[in-house]
């Protein structure tokens, strides 16, 4: 599809919109429907579209498999890290209120925001990783594990 002008232009227009929408769903999750899981999937979709139109190697140059794997782990660490920080601040594990003892409501807000960000990063990374695995030719990596 690399030579299909209409598809390329349409994709170029759509991809930033999809990414922006993902961020909207991510950060609006506190107030309305949405959150890290949905946002992560939507964000990953923008990469899928890019890979479908411009080819897998181009997508892998933007988000290298190594980076994607690191992001998947980093999201989990961010989630659990917020839990640990709230524990060190005097609350229980994942008690976000303790993040900001002066104003617990603000603490709750920060906590949820960070946790959902962790979810979003990991979900997006895992979706992209799955897409790469299924899209790659089988014999490219036959060592058995990813």
């Amino acid at each position: 599809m690399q030579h299909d002008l209409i598809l390329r232009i349409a994709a170029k227009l759509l991809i930033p919109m999809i990414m922006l929408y993902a961020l909207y769903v991510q950060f609006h999750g506190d107030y309305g429907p949405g959150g890290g899981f949905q946002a992560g999937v939507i964000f990953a979709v923008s990469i899928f579209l890019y890979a479908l139109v411009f080819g897998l190697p181009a997508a892998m140059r933007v988000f290298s498999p190594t980076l994607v794997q690191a992001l998947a782990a980093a999201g989990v660490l961010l989630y659990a890290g917020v839990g640990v920080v709230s524990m060190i601040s005097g609350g229980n594990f994942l008690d976000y209120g303790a993040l900001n003892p002066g104003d617990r409501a603000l603490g709750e807000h920060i906590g949820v925001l960070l946790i959902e960000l962790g979810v979003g990063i990991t979900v997006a990374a895992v979706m992209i990783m799955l897409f790469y695995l299924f899209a790659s030719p089988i014999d490219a990596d036959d060592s058995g594990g990813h």
Partner: protein
Amino acid sequence: MEFGWGAHLPILQVIVVLLAAPLAFLTRRVRAAWLIAFIASAIALWIASRLLIQVQQDGVIVYQLGGWAAPMGIGYHIDLLNAFMLVLVSAISTIALPYSLRSIENELSAHSQPLFYVYWLLCVAGLLGILATGDAFNVFVFLEISALSTYALIALGSDRGGDRRALHASLRYLLLGSIGATFIVIGIGLLYMMTGTLNMMDLAARLPAVEDTRTVHAAFAFLVIGTGLKAAMFPLHTWLPDAYTHAPSATSVLLAGTSTKVAIYVMLRFLISVFGFEFSFIGIHVELWLLPLAVLAILYGSLCAVYQMDAKRLLAYSSVAQVGYIFLAISIGSAAGIAAGLIHMFNHALMKAVLFMAIGAVVYRAGGSRLFHIAGFGRAMPWTFGALLLGGMSLVGVPFTVGFISKWYLVTSSLDTYGLALVVFVLASSLLAALYVWRLVDVAWFRPVMHERELQEAPLSMLLPMWVLVLANVYFAFDSDLTVGIAQRTAAVLLGGAP
């Protein structure tokens, strides 16, 4: 605010290991990943022992995640039963990790080795989470974490162009394990429908009001079968022999020592803590189902083990039989019986881990676990086969090993309920165990070597953990207070009604 680690031990028990997994993944180096895994596992063991001591002194420990009170939020609930199991799982993981380093270097490609420890950490974190939580749905979540990583741990057996059958074994376990997990979540869902709560203690309080409904009976059936599948209860054991045989040796050590035991724990927890002893045993008579299945498991598992040509498969079928003994003990339906089941859970983990370690050491030197690989290796690897012999004696139930303690409490507790018939059966089935252990011994010492490999003892880093467990097999036979004492108190508390 004052910060004390002591109050957070129940959650640290799980998240130290859970956090170590992404950290180990980010390092991408085998040694670093291994070190992180070992440190996390050792910390988990330390926390588990602290919890066990604390529970014995002060009773049940409750921890509320996010500060939400128990019926609403997720509560971790540590009592004697799960503290005991937490020690078992984290101890097996800590002892098996130094062993795995060389074994995994030999069996997996450089690319997969760091991943192995990541899966290992996730699996152990899942198992510890199942044990620590007091929330029924949380049990399911952790069950999935441990199960998914277990599938990967097994599938890695196909690495390095090795045994492609590991993929098949893993897929089969994935399909059956998913059915088991689905049954468990259906059961939990039905309970939630009837009571509106997921907290186990809350469930236990609300269930008696609705226990005569068909929904609750269906939930009971789903939970018993789901956990039975995970525990490899006969005839739901079919995933186990393949999985244990084709997985990397270190995986078999971890799984044989922990995963079926944790599934049995979940079943016990639901049978006794959630549904209650009166409902499960006096109302529904679950023991009438457990007893024949256990007897069949012992006969079938032992007989199959006798005819195997692969040492790992032989041990796997033996595990099917040993799970049968645990269910046999539980089916007695008295405090003594449940104590005997718990004792055997602990002891069987000790002996099976030794045996799988010994076979793994043979795989390291001989390149395979089929009987002809082992043939004649007894003299070249005296320490490995010494461990195999002692572990095997423990499995049979020879005096001065923990196996004897297991059989002793099983027989004495069953005398009251089932009379002499069961005693005769247990003794006769031990002879079958002696038969298949003898096959290994016979092949190792009295047959000529059948392949051209260097005849050499296993490396020290594999022998040391093996012998630590061998000594544990003997030590806990003499100082049985830790296992027997705790198991009996646990059973008494469980049946006493008090949480």
